[in-house]
C-alpha cells in the first residue's frame, strides 16, 4: 500500500508522528428496567456520577479547560435539560433512550445555528450525552497509548483533558471545526489538530505524520515523504524559535532586502488579535465571509461599516480588498450557480460579479465610499481577459460618479487584479491593472491541472513546480518593468519552505495569515535573495537570452 495523503482545515499548529488510532463510537447496550421509577432513579444516579467526574476532572484542570468543564457541568445541572428527560421516562421510555432523545434535539438545534461558534458547541453536548450514557451502562473509555494520532468523527473536550499529551500525539477529525472547544484546548496545549478530513480518515491504520499548520496528514508515508516531513519540522521549529524575536521587526533578508509583509483576513474580528505594528498593511481582505446569506449581498451599509472598521484598524496602511470571490469551492446560496460540472472552471470570481452586476455595484459603491477614509485598493479575483478588468473599471467609475453626483463622499481607489488564471499570468502585460497580486493556490491548481480538493493529486499541486515559479517570475518581472506593485497572497507566501523560491522568483511583497507572520519573517531573514532560487532565475535568464 502506498502512502495516503489527507488534507483538512488546520485547527492547531505543530507536528506529530505516531500510530494512528481510530476512535469508533462504540455501541453501548444496557438492559432497561420496565419500571419508570427505577429508570428515573438510574438516570439521576448517572447524572450524579457524570457531574462527579466533571468536578473531579475540573479540579485537575485550569484555564480554558476548566471553563469548558464548567460549562458542561452547568448544562448537566440545569433542570431545563433534566425535566424533559424525566417526562419521557415517566411516559415509559428507557433512561438512555430518553436522555439521548433530549440531548440529540438540543444538538440538532445548535448544529442549525448560523454562527460557527454556536455550531461548535455541539461537541460539548455530545460529550455530555456520551458521558452520561457511559455512566448509565457502566462503560469506561478504553485507555489510549500516549503519543498516538487519534482519528475520530469528533472529539469530546473532556476526553482531551483526560489524556496524557506529554508524549506528543495529535488529533485528526473527519468533521469538526477550528472553533470547537477541543481545538481551543489543542492550541493551548500545543497538540497538533486537523479537522474536516472526511470519513476516509477513519478507515486507515499505520503510522501517521501530522502537520497541523498546513492541515495535512500522511499515513504510511514513503521514506522520501518522511524525510521531507522531518526537514519541514526542523525548519518550522527553528523559525518558530526565532519568530518571537522577529515578529515586531520589519521583514528583511539576510543581505538587507526589505520585503513588504501584509496580512490576509476574512473577518474584521480577526484584527482584534493582531498588532498592526507587526505588518505593513492588509494584502487581502476576503469578502465572502461578510456575506453568509445572499440577503447581505445587497446591504451596502453593512459592507461599508465592515470596510470602515478594517480601514480604521490599518491607520493609513494600505488595505487591499478583494471583491466577492464566490463560486468554485465557495458557494453562496441564491447567488452562485448550482450544478456546474466543474465549479473551479465555471462562473466564479469576477465572472460571477459581471454576471450579476446589480450585486457587484453594491460592493463597488461600499468600497468607493470606504476609500475616502484610508488607503484602499480594490482587487478583482479570477480575471482571465483584459475585457473583464475594463468592464469592472467602467462599473466602478459609474458608481463613483453617481455617488459624487448625489453628494456622497466617494473616491475611485486603485483597481488591481489577482493573477491566478494561467492566461493572466502568461500575458500579464496585456492587463492595464494598477497592481497585481498572485494567488498561488489557484495558480498552482490551474497550472498543474491538479484540484485543491482532491487528495489523490495533492502531490501534483506543487507551488515549486518550475512552471508555476516561471509564471510567478514573469509577473514579478512585469511589475518591476512597468513600475506596478506585485504581491503574492496565496498560502505559499506563509510557508517558510516555499519563501526562498518565491523571493528567488522576484516576489518582494507577501501577504500571509496573521499567524504565519513571524515564521515567514524568520524564513526571509535566513536567506539572501540572490542565492535563494538562483537556479530558476538563471534558467529564466538563459531562456530569455535564447529567445533574444
Amino acid at each position, binding site marked *: 500500500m502506498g502512502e495516503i495523503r489527507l488534507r483538512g482545515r488546520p485547527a492547531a499548529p505543530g507536528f506529530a508522528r505516531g500510530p494512528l488510532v481510530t476512535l469508533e463510537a462504540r455501541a453501548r447496550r444496557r438492559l432497561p428496567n420496565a419500571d419508570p421509577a427505577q429508570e428515573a432513579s438510574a438516570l439521576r444516579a448517572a447524572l450524579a456520577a457524570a457531574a462527579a467526574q466533571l468536578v473531579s476532572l475540573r479540579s485537575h484542570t485550569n484555564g480554558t479547560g476548566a471553563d469548558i468543564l464548567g*460549562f458542561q457541568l452547568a448544562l448537566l445541572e440545569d433542570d*431545563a435539560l433534566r425535566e424533559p428527560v424525566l417526562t419521557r421516562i415517566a411516559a415509559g421510555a428507557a433512561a438512555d433512550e430518553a436522555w439521548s432523545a433530549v440531548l440529540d434535539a438540543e444538538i440538532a438545534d445548535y448544529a442549525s445555528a448560523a454562527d460557527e461558534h454556536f455550531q461548535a458547541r455541539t461537541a460539548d453536548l455530545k460529550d455530555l450525552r456520551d458521558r452520561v450514557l457511559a455512566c448509565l451502562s457502566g462503560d469506561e473509555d478504553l485507555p489510549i497509548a500516549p503519543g498516538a494520532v487519534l482519528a475520530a468523527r469528533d472529539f469530546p473536550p473532556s476526553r482531551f483533558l483526560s489524556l496524557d499529551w506529554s508524549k506528543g500525539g495529535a488529533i485528526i477529525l473527519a468533521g469538526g471545526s477550528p472553533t470547537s472547544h477541543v481545538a481551543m484546548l489543542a492550541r493551548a496545549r500545543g497538540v497538533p489538530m486537523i479537522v474536516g478530513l472526511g470519513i476516509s480518515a477513519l478507515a486507515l491504520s499505520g503510522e501517521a505524520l501530522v502537520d497541523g499548520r498546513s492541515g495535512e496528514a500522511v499515513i504510511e508515508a514513503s521514506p522520501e515523504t518522511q524525510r521531507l516531513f522531518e526537514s519541514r519540522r526542523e525548519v518550522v521549529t527553528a523559525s518558530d524559535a526565532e519568530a518571537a524575536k522577529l515578529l515586531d521587526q520589519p521583514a528583511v533578508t539576510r543581505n538587507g532586502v526589505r520585503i513588504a509583509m501584509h496580512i490576509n483576513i476574512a473577518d474584521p474580528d480577526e484584527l482584534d488579535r493582531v498588532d498592526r505594528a507587526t505588518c505593513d498593511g492588509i494584502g487581502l481582505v476576503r469578502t465572502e465571509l461578510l456575506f453568509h446569506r445572499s440577503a447581505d449581498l445587497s446591504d451596502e451599509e453593512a459592507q461599508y461599516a465592515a470596510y470602515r472598521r478594517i480601514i480604521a484598524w490599518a491607520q493609513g496602511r494600505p488595505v487591499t480588498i478583494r471583491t466577492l470571490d464566490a463560486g468554485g469551492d465557495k458557494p453562496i446560496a441564491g447567488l452562485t450557480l448550482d450544478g456546474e460540472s466543474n465549479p473551479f472552471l465555471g462562473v466564479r470570481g469576477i465572472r460571477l460579479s459581471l454576471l450579476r452586476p446589480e450585486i457587484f455595484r453594491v460592493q463597488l459603491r461600499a468600497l468607493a465610499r470606504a476609500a475616502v477614509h484610508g488607503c484602499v485598493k480594490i482587487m478583482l479575483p479570477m480575471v482571465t481577459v483584459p475585457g473583464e478588468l475594463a468592464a469592472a473599471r467602467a462599473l466602478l467609475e459609474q458608481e463613483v460618479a453617481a455617488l459624487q453626483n448625489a453628494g456622497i463622499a466617494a473616491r475611485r481607489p486603485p483597481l488591481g487584479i489577482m493573477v491566478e488564471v494561467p492566461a493572466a499570468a502568461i500575458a500579464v502585460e496585456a492587463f492595464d491593472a494598477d497592481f497585481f497580486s498572485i494567488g498561488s493556490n489557484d495558480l498552482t491548481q490551474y497550472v498543474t491541472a491538479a484540484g485543491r480538493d482532491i487528495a489523490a493529486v495533492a502531490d501534483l499541486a506543487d507551488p515549486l513546480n518550475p512552471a508555476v515559479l516561471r509564471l510567478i517570475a514573469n509577473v514579478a518581472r512585469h511589475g518591476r518593468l512597468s513600475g506596478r506593485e506585485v504581491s503574492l497572497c496565496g498560502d505559499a507566501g506563509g510557508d517558510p519552505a516555499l519563501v526562498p523560491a518565491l523571493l528567488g522568483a522576484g516576489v518582494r511583497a507577501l501577504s500571509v495569515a496573521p499567524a504565519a507572520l513571524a515564521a515567514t519573517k524568520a524564513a526571509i531573514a535566513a536567506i539572501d535573495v540572490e542565492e535563494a532560487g538562483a537556479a530558476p532565475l538563471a534558467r529564466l535568464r538563459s531562456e530569455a537570452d535564447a529567445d533574444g
Partner: protein
Amino acid sequence: MKEQAMPNSALVASALLTNAVGLHARPSVKLTQLAKSFASHVELALHRDGPWVDAKSPVKIMRVKAPKGAMLYFRARGSDARAAIASLVALVDSRFDEDEHETGERAHG
C-alpha cells in the same frame, strides 16, 4: 442602562452585547450564575416584547444564540429585582470580564 418600571412591578433594562463571540458558553455560565445569586425571577430576551427565557437556565440561555451586536433585555420581578438587573447589565457592559484572545480566536489560512 435604561431602566423602566413595568406593570406588576417588573423591571426591564437593556444592554448591548459587545464581546467577541456573543452570548456563548462562558458568558452564558457567568450570566446564569450571577442571575441565580438573586432571589428574584429574572428573564432575558432579544426583543423588548420577548419571548422571555429564564436567565437562570444555561440551557435556555444558550438556545437564544444571541450574537455579538445583539441587544439583550433583562426583566426581573421580586425583592431584589433592581440589584439583579443592575448587576446583569454591568456584566454585559464589562464584556463578561473575558480575556477575548482565546474565545474569539479563529484559525487562519
